[in-house]
């Protein structure tokens, strides 16, 4: 029983890590109605920039500020060079553009910062502590704390601010948003900058987990089932989805996996998410797709 609880808690906390990546997707999906495939590359890019600046001898806080500046700049440039020119195109075109972006950012990041694996130490020790007989990772708890703060902040931003409202308006209807004078450029630049910030947080946490390396881009594939489950448009959904996926994935790995010779973690979350989808086609918390003939 204790073992079960330990696996469960480990899974839940691992799920929070997925949620961190998923949140970046939600931001951009909400504002431009597009699944940003480049989120994973942005995570890599943020982490790479951070460790490289650190390696040049900058203190921690300076590296953080500089990386944040880089990510905001990246967001603004993406808006200026790409998105602005794709206004009103079908979603799939935008989606493909983000795949193009992901290739480009990966290339760029590794060209500038090199492609060797860097270690990253955030100074949070990863020794599990004993909580009534259950071992819990401190690092994971820290990550969960970060996620909670992010969620609270983003929810306020979307529902209580003028620019947040404009963001949701743009997500619903580009053209109408333009017609009332919402400058798409600013809105998108803000959103991409915010997504860059979320990518930075995710990049630091994941980077110190796995090492900063190319494989970081693959966290996208972990985040997608979370999004399907939680809904592309809901920040709390991203968290709950992450928790569900994380927990079930770990439990399945431990209790079902051995029967298949393991390796099920690549597809299991997808099948699980799919099963949920059949019940709720817009995810558990996604905005219902309003469709009228």
């Amino acid at each position, binding site marked *: 029983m204790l073992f079960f609880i330990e696996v469960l808690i480990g899974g839940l906390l691992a799920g929070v890590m997925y949620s961190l990546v998923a949140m970046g997707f939600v931001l951009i999906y909400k504002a431009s109605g597009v699944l940003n495939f480049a989120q994973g590359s942005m995570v890599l890019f943020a982490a790479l920039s951070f460790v490289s600046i650190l390696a040049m001898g900058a203190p921690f806080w300076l590296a953080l500020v500089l990386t944040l500046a880089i990510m905001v700049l990246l967001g603004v440039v993406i808006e200026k060079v790409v998105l602005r020119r794709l206004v009103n195109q079908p979603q799939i075109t935008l989606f493909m553009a983000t795949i193009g972006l992901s290739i480009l950012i990966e290339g760029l990041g590794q060209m500038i910062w090199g492609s060797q694996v860097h270690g990253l130490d955030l100074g949070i020790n990863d020794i599990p502590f004993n909580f009534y007989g259950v071992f819990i990772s401190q690092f994971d708890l820290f990550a969960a704390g970060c996620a909670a703060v992010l969620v609270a902040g983003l929810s306020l931003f979307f529902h209580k601010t003028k620019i947040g409202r404009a963001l949701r308006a743009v997500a619903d209807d580009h*053209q109408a948003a333009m017609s009332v004078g919402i400058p798409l450029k600013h809105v998108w630049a803000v959103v991409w900058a915010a997504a860059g910030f979320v990518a930075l947080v995710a990049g630091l946490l994941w980077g110190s987990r796995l090492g900063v390396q190319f494989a970081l881009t693959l966290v996208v594939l972990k985040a997608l089932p979370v999004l399907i489950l939680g809904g592309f448009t809901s920040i709390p959904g991203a968290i709950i989805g992450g928790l569900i996926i994380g927990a079930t994935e770990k439990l399945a790995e431990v209790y079902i996996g051995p029967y298949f010779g393991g390796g099920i973690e690549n597809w299991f979350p997808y099948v699980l998410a799919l099963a949920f989808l059949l019940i709720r086609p817009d995810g558990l918390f996604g905005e219902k797709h309003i469709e009228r003939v």
Partner: protein
Amino acid sequence: MSVQGNSILTVNNIEVIYNHVILVLKGVSLDVPEGKIVALLGANGAGKTTTLKAVSNLLRAERGDVTKGSIEFKGKRVDKMTPPELVKQGVIQVMEGRHCFAHLTVEENLLTGAYTRKVSRAEIRRDLERVYAYFPRLKERRNSQAGYTSGGEQQMTAIGRALMAHPSMILLDEPSMGLAPQLVEEIFEIVRDLNQKEKVSFLLAEQNTNVALRYADFGYILENGRVVMDGKAADLATNEDVKEFYLGISSGARKSFRDAKHYRRRKRWLA
């Protein structure tokens, strides 16, 4: 016809091409006098929407381009301005087919209209109440998602949203689309109200010639990207050709084909 003196909007012989090949407007000129309602009439595909979008500059996003001519608002060239700049100048478009933000509530929809204005919260509240005064129905539905409100309510939301920007001119595209006749009258009454009380000038594109000519001061008739007729709304409404071709009223006996040709001839001469 030319309107002397104080026209708020002047469109000067504009040509619009979509996708670099599809020529849609072949030289359209029109005038909107300050404080008046001008109707832009014509069959499907005549180019009404295109004309409005050329003014509000929403064309660019559809790969359309104004290749000739000029557009002036309050005496200033506006053809190179972005939509947000235009909204700040006081020109706002209400698009065809009531593009509401489906997932936002009615009230949130209205608030987005005030995006370009830098004023206090209290003032925005006041404007909101003003819109609700014109559209009491919206007040009842203020907290429902716009996507689930009726077509009429969506049209009202769209107009109300435009009002929140404090425009001096509204480009209104087919407000009657898909609405019951009574609701159409209701909407047009409100348009007239806004025009008289708030001094908003209107350029409105309509299929419903009958209603449009009753509420408008002037009218332009567009056909195949050209203005083929224009004049005071009252004059147009009594014009034999307009009656025959746009209002479906023929005077007396059925006309022979030769008379129809007379209209064609006249049209070509005007264009």
